[in-house]
């Protein structure tokens, strides 16, 4: 049914390597290096494109043309900006903790990389298919906050410190909501493995299968996901108008660029998890019963489906940022602990009841 099956490609590479080098450490290393380079390229290209997309989306929202000078429709603008950031001097900060200061951006980037590794882009196009994929992604994506805390603490700047502390409180709180809303779907899917979660949505996406509880879980996941990426209206860690730039106030050049790119890649991670768990991952849109429609939909390549859904979610998150004012830290925590968490717990019970009684579609 599917036009492109990446399992063939990956297994042929694997077999080719095994036949020439034999099963062993060397083969595994080479495979990891190939996958790493592929992910690195994807990271850079997608990050730059996401920055361009955000500039265009916010320009549309704000009644202005956006970047339109460098290259056709300004598409080279972000590349030019990135080159500028690469060549900029790294300003040394007095009395900063040098080791931690330099380490922080890499922790943030590593956490993002680790999460991308588990996401299935297409059938077989996935670096690692863990049994506990969803749990793994939830765990590693929260490592990023360590980098933010270190960045804030080691910069020797009060703005940075306040931003980092806010970010710590925020991410620790919203991890709960994000995790619980994913748990709701795990109850429905009966598995934590990403490939099986996607396979379970071949006929209908989970957001429709689980009807009301799944929709509630999806909305909560989008709110918590936006909060986890430290983007508006939850951008308290940066809070441009209050803390100038928050935790990355003192960063410059390529280290700043790493923070900046990781923000967009975190958006991608959240959108990709949302897509995979709620919106069927790379599965096409199917309506049970309409065979003609389903066949036409199935002819669109799964990779396109995946990125289409990811971009829809990313644009929704951008829409949040450019429309809403920022919350205050106590309001942010109140929203989580007093509203989202209880709703989530009730929703989880509701979903469990639905599954037990067979009410889901």
């Amino acid at each position: 049914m599917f036009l492109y099956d990446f399992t063939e490609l990956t297994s042929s590479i694997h077999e080719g390597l095994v036949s020439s080098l034999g099963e062993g450490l060397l083969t595994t290393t080479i495979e990891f290096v190939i996958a790493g380079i592929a992910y690195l390229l994807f990271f850079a290209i997608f990050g730059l494109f996401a920055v361009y997309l955000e500039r265009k989306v916010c320009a549309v929202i704000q009644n202005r043309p956006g970047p339109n000078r460098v290259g056709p429709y300004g598409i080279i603008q972000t590349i030019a900006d990135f080159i500028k950031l690469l060549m900029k001097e790294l300003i040394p900060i007095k009395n900063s903790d040098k080791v931690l200061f330099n380490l922080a951006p890499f922790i943030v980037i590593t956490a993002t990389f680790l999460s991308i590794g588990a996401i299935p882009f297409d059938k077989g196009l996935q670096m690692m298919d863990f049994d506990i994929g969803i749990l793994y992604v939830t765990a590693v994506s929260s490592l990023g906050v360590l980098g933010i805390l270190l960045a804030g603490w080691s910069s020797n700047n009060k703005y940075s410190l306040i931003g980092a502390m806010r970010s710590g409180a925020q991410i620790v709180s919203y991890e709960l909501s994000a995790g619980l809303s994913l748990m709701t779907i795990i109850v429905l899917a009966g598995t934590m493995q990403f490939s099986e979660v996607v396979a379970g949505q071949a006929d209908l996406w989970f957001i429709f299968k689980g009807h009301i509880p799944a929709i509630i879980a999806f909305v909560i996941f989008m709110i918590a996901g936006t909060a986890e990426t430290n983007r508006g209206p939850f951008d308290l860690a940066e809070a441009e108008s209050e803390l100038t730039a928050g935790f990355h106030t003192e960063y410059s050049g390529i280290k700043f660029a790493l923070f900046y790119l990781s923000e967009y890649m975190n958006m991608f991670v959240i959108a990709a998890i949302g897509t995979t768990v709620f919106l069927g991952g790379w599965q096409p849109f199917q309506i049970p019963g309409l065979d003609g429609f389903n066949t036409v939909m199935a002819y669109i390549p799964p990779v396109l489906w995946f990125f289409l859904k990811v971009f829809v979610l990313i644009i929704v998150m951008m829409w949040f940022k450019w429309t809403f004012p920022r919350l205050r830290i106590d309001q942010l925590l109140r929203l989580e602990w007093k509203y989202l968490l209880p709703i989530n717990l009730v929703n989880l019970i509701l979903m469990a009841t639905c599954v037990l009684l067979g009410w889901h579609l």
Partner: protein
Amino acid sequence: MTNTIANIDKEEDYFLNLGPQHPSTHGVLRLLVNLRGEVVKDLKPYCGYIHRGIEKMCERNTYPQIIHLTDRLDYLSAHQNNEAVCLLVEKALGVEVSDRVKYIRTIMSELSRIASHLLWWSAFGMDLGALTTFFYGLRDREHILDIFEETTGGRLLQSYNCPGGVMYDIHPNFQKRVKECLVHLKKKLPEYDKLLTGNVIFKNRAIGVGLLSKEDAISFGVTGPSGRGSGFSCDIRKLEPYSAYDKVQFDEIIRTECDSMARYKNRIDEFYQSMSIIEQLIDNIPDGDYQTKMKPIIKLPEGQYYQRVESSRGEFGVFVESRGEKNPYRIKFRSPNLANLSALDHMVRGQKIADLIAIMGSLDLVIPDIDR
């Protein structure tokens, strides 16, 4: 400004220098904030980073020259500041200006007020983290600035008033464009409510935040929309009508909630009041001289003079002591922003840093007017 920072706990508290370079002080204002965690315990404003000695410069200049310096005080109320000086000179000399001048001045003042409130709305949204407001506000402000440019030649600092009238007659297109602009604004202002006023996050950030009681507003001298948000009736246009304000019907917007939301809504309502004032005047501009013939060298008779006007941010006053020379012996500007800033410390104690920014935004401070 002589409040002392008290009750410092050296273990728990820390100081944060907010400014002089900071995105949301909207200028070079330095606030020394004493914080415990996120909570503001105390705040001390340090002024003077943009002190240009305007009052001292005025002493060496003639009255027509002073007008151009008053532009540079509160650059968003440039027209109203000019008007205050011109009214003072006319009052001192006993010159009666024609109705045409009064009408033009009033229309221009109200256009300035709309333009100033539009910029305030844009910047207030930015302070709260709603980044799109800035572009909405500036988009509409541009129409008013174009009108200014056509008639006065200046967009921000018009220097349109002169003792005895206005510099030039209005442009032939003036009335048509003002009416077009009002139609445009009436269409666009509901968008502002949709984008910001009704937003639940905005309501949480503004309602009940930055309380300033009526007594405190009076004792700190907080005027303008901020003072009227605390129930302090201080609209000079009503209390001491000047120019054509006695010929028009308008309401003094007063709210008694005393919070940021009251100050916000006051300014939103003032858009509509200003538009109504302009609508009443724009079709009835009488014929007459746009300038009364004055002596080439204006000398004020010996004595003390005070003239106040309602600028976009509150009561703007000019005090002149004249010794009969062509320049004032002493001049003092009563700037609304300095008085409004003085209440900030009182309002933010016990609030969070985010609220400090929101409250400062709701007061609508223009820093060059504080330092002068």
